[in-house]
C-alpha cells in the first residue's frame, strides 16, 4: 500500500524555512528570488493551446449534460399518454437531434482547427507529441459523447418502427373478430371495409388473390341472408387460414426489418473502415507517385550513363 507523505513534505518545508531563517539565508535566494516571487504571483501564463483545449472540453461537457438531461424524456415511448411533465413531442425530439448534430459538428471543427494550429510555433518534439495526444483524447471524448446521442437516436428510431408495425397489424384477439366480421361483410358487401384498410394496404396483392376464390365460392351464398352451418364452418376455416397467413406475413416482415437494421449497422461499420482506410490509401498513393518519379529519373540516368559509356 502506498503511503501518503504529503503532510510530511509540508512539515519538511516548514522545517527548512525556519532553519533558513535561523541561518540567515534569505528565503528564495535574494534578488532573483524576489523576482521569482513576483513572477509567481502574476498568473502563470496559461498556454494558449491548453486554454482552448479546455474550452473545447467544456463545450463537449455541455453537450453531454444536455443530452443526459433530456435523455429520459427523449426515449420515453409513452409520452403521449403521460402527463405534461414527462412529455416531449416529436418536434422537440427533432430539435434536440438537430441541435446535437450542429454542436457536434462545431466541436469537431474546433478540434481540427486546434490540430492545425498546435504544431505552429512549437519547436520542441515533446510538446508536439504531447499536444497531438491531448487532441486525440479530446476527439475520443467527443466520440464517446456522440455515442450517447446515436444510442438514444437508435432507440427512438426503433420505437417509431415498432409503433408503426403495431399500428398496422391489429393484435390477435381483435384480428379474429375482425376477420370473422370481414368474411361476413364480404358476403354482404363485397367492397372492403374501411377498418381493414390498413391491413389490405399492406398486403394488397395477397388479399385480393385470396379473397377472389373465396368470393367466388361464396358467390352462391351472397344473396342469402342466413348462412347454413356448412357455410359457417367454411367461413371459420377460411378465417383460420387467413389468420395463419397474416401471421406468417407478419413474421416475415419482422425478419426483414431485423435484417435491415443489421444491414444498416454493417453499413456503419463499413463506412468507418473505409474512412479509416482513406488516409492509408492516400499515403500509399503518394508513395507510389514518388516511386514512379524515382524510377523515371533512374531510367533517365541510366540512359544517359550508357550513352556516355558508348561514346567512350
Amino acid at each position, binding site marked *: 500500500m502506498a*503511503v501518503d507523505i504529503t503532510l510530511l513534505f509540508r512539515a519538511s518545508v516548514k522545517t527548512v524555512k525556519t532553519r533558513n531563517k535561523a541561518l540567515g539565508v534569505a528565503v528564495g535566494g535574494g534578488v532573483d528570488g524576489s523576482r521569482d516571487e513576483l513572477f509567481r504571483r502574476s498568473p502563470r501564463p496559461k498556454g494558449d493551446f491548453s486554454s482552448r483545449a479546455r474550452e473545447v472540453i467544456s463545450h463537449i461537457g455541455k453537450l453531454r449534460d444536455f443530452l443526459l438531461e433530456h435523455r429520459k424524456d427523449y426515449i420515453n415511448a409513452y409520452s403521449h399518454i403521460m402527463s405534461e411533465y414527462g412529455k416531449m413531442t416529436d418536434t422537440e425530439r427533432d430539435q434536440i437531434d438537430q441541435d446535437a448534430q450542429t454542436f457536434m459538428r462545431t466541436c469537431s471543427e474546433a478540434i481540427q482547427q486546434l490540430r492545425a494550429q498546435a504544431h505552429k510555433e512549437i519547436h520542441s518534439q515533446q510538446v508536439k507529441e504531447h499536444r497531438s495526444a491531448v487532441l486525440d483524447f479530446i476527439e475520443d471524448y467527443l466520440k464517446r459523447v456522440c455515442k450517447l446521442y446515436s444510442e438514444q437516436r437508435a432507440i427512438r428510431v426503433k420505437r417509431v418502427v415498432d409503433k408503426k408495425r403495431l399500428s398496422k397489424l391489429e393484435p390477435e384477439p381483435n384480428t379474429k373478430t375482425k376477420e370473422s366480421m370481414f368474411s361476413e361483410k364480404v358476403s354482404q358487401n363485397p367492397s372492403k371495409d374501411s377498418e381493414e384498410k390498413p391491413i389490405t394496404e399492406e398486403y394488397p396483392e395477397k388479399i385480393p388473390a385470396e379473397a377472389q376464390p373465396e368470393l367466388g365460392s361464396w358467390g352462391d351464398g351472397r344473396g342469402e341472408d342466413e348462412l347454413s352451418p356448412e357455410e359457417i364452418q367454411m367461413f371459420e376455416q377460411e378465417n383460420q387460414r387467413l389468420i395463419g397467413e397474416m401471421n406468417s406475413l407478419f413474421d416475415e416482415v419482422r425478419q426483414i426489418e431485423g435484417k435491415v437494421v443489421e444491414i444498416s449497422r454493417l453499413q456503419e461499420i463499413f463506412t468507418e473502415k473505409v474512412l479509416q482506410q482513406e488516409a492509408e490509401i492516400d499515403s500509399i498513393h503518394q508513395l507510389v507517385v514518388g516511386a514512379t518519379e524515382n524510377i523515371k529519373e533512374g531510367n533517365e540516368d541510366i540512359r544517359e550513363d550508357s550513352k556516355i559509356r558508348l561514346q567512350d
Partner: protein
Amino acid sequence: MVGVKMAAAAAASIRERQTVALKRMLNFNVPHVKNSTGEPVWKVLIYDRFGQDIISPLLSVKELRDMGITLHLLLHSDRDPIPDVPAVYFVMPSEENIDRMCQDLRNQLYESYYLNFISAISRSKLEDIANAALAASAVAQVAKVFDQYLNFITLEDDMFVLCNQNKELVSYRAINRPDITDTEMETVMDTIVDSLFCFFVTLGAVPIIRCSRGTAAEMVAVKLDKKLRENLRDARNSLFTGDTLGAGQFSFQRPLLVLVDRNIDLATPLHHTWTYQALVHDVLDFHLNRVNLEESSGVENSPAGARPKRKNKKSYDLTPVDKFWQKHKGSPFPEVAESVQQELESYRAQEDEVKRLKSIMGLEGEDEGAISMLSDNTAKLTSAVSSLPELLEKKRLIDLHTNVATAVLEHIKARKLDVYFEYEEKIMSKTTLDKSLLDIISDPDAGTPEDKMRLFLIYYISAQQAPSEADLEQYKKALTDAGCNLNPLQYIKQWKAFAKMASAPASYGNTTTKSMGLLSRVMNTGSQFVMEGVKNLVLKQQNLPVTRILDNLMEMKSNPETDDYRYFDPKMLRGNDSSVPRNKNPFQEAIVFVVGGGNYIEYQNLVDYIKGKQGKHILYGCSELFNATQFIKQVKCVFHLLLLTYPKLL
C-alpha cells in the same frame, strides 16, 4: 460472510496488485474508476530506469494512454518545459534522482508535480526537495508526495524478481565472492530486504519466515524479520494495519516465506530444459517478458556485389493477454509446436469462412435462391465483421509464436538439446545411463562446449561419489578437447567440498523421463515444425530440491533436510529463535524466494507441483533471473576471485 469473501479474494495475484497500485498512482493517487463519459485528464509520466523496469511488464503503452498519459519520459533525459500539464514522477529516492527533480522544480518544467518514490524516501532527502521547492517558489505546485513501496518487478501472476538495473549488486557473484567486506554484504542484504519488504507491503500480509542456517538466506531472514517487526510495533505508521490490508487479506492463515540460498542446488541453473518458457529463456534473448530475435533472411544466392543482407531484429512482448503463451508456457516443446499448428489451422478455417461469405455476397440480386440464402448470411456477415479484430489479433499471436518456436527449434536441432535434456534427467534421477558420458562429450555434433560443460557439471554435482582421479582426467581431457574452459569445474569442486550438502548430494526425485522414441515428424505434411530427429520427450513430474524443501515446510512434514530451519514470526512479541514452529497446520499460501538467483525451470517445477493441490498457491521470487550461460559466467568470476583471494586453496 466477510471472511469467505476474503478467502476468495485471497489469491489475487501479485501482478494484479502491483498493477492496481500503479494505476492508482497514475490517477493522481486516487482509486481509478472507469467512467465512459468522463472528461479527459492528461498528464506526463516521468520515471527512472527502475520505474521503467517495474512498469513495462505490467502496463503497455496503450494502457498508459488510456490512463491519460500523453508523454512518458526518462528522468535523466532532456526534457522541455510543457506548460499547464501535471507531471507524475515514479523514481527511486537516490541522490542523482533527487538532484534532477530539484532541477526540474527550479526550471519550472510542469504545472504541478506528483512525486512517487518506489521505496521509502529518507527524511533528509525529503528536506532537500523541500529546499529546492522553496528556492523555486514552487511549494504549492508539489501536489502530492507518496512512498509507493513497489520496489520489485513482477513478471508473472506468481513470479517476481527484485530488480534489473542494479542486479549486479545482488547477483550470485556479489553474494558469493570471497573478497566481500562486511559493509558491502550489509548493503547487499539491505537492498534485498528492502525489496522483500515492499513486496509484503504490496501483498498486504505478514509472513511466517523459514530459512536454512548458515547461509545468506539466513542473513536476509534475520533482517527482514527485524524490519517487519519494527514496522508492526510502530502502530501509528504501520503499513499492515487493518484498513491498508483491506480487500486482499490472505485467507485466515498467514503465508509462509521460504528463504533458500542458491547454493543448495547448483544443478538446476545448469540444467537443459524442455518447457517452452524455460527454453526461450535458455536459448534466446529473453528479458523482462520481452524476447529479441534476430531473423536471418536467407542469404544463399545474393548476387555478386550486392550488399550483404542485414539481419532483421524483432522483439516480441509475451504478455498476460497472449492466451497461447499463458496456456503453453509450461508445456513441453513438442506440444507447443503442435498447438501452434492447430491454432494456425483453425485460423485458416475462420479466414476461409469470411472469404466464402465474400463470394456469396457477390451473388446478391441475381436470383431468388441467392437472396433467400442471404437470410442468415447477413447475420453471419455481421458476426464475421465484428470478429475481424479478434481474428487479426489471433493471427498476430500465431505469427509471433511461430517465429519464436522456430528460433527455439533451430537451436534444439543444432545443439541436440533433446539429447542433453534426456541425459541430464536420467543423471538427476539416478537411473542407469545408456550412453557413456564420455561419448556425448566427445561427440563433435552435439552441442556447444558450454552445453557439454553443463552436462558434466550436473553429473559431477549429482554423483554420489566423486569420480576417480583417472576418470576425472579422462573427462577433463575430453572437455578441453571440445573447447571447454575448466574453471567452472574447479569452482564446483570447491563448492562440493565446502557445502554441507557434500555428504548428501541433492537428490532429484525418483521418476524418469520416458522417451517416446524417435519421431520423424510430429505433425502432418505442411507443418513448419519438422521435428525430424528430435525426440518427443514427455516430462514426468519430479521435484527439484527447492520444490522438495517447500513441500516439507508447507505440509509440515518432518525431514532431516528442513528440520533445523529457523523459524521467524514478526508478529510475535518476543523474538522466537527456536526451530519449533508454533503453527502445526499446513500452509495454504507460500512464497519461495531464492537468494542468489533463480530461473524458469525452478519456477515451472513449483507451478507443476502446486497444480495438483487444490486451493494452495505459491509465489516464486529470486534476487535475479539468469540462464545457464549467465550463471556460468558468474561462476567463473567467483572462481577467479577465489583464486586471487586464496591462491593456496587449490
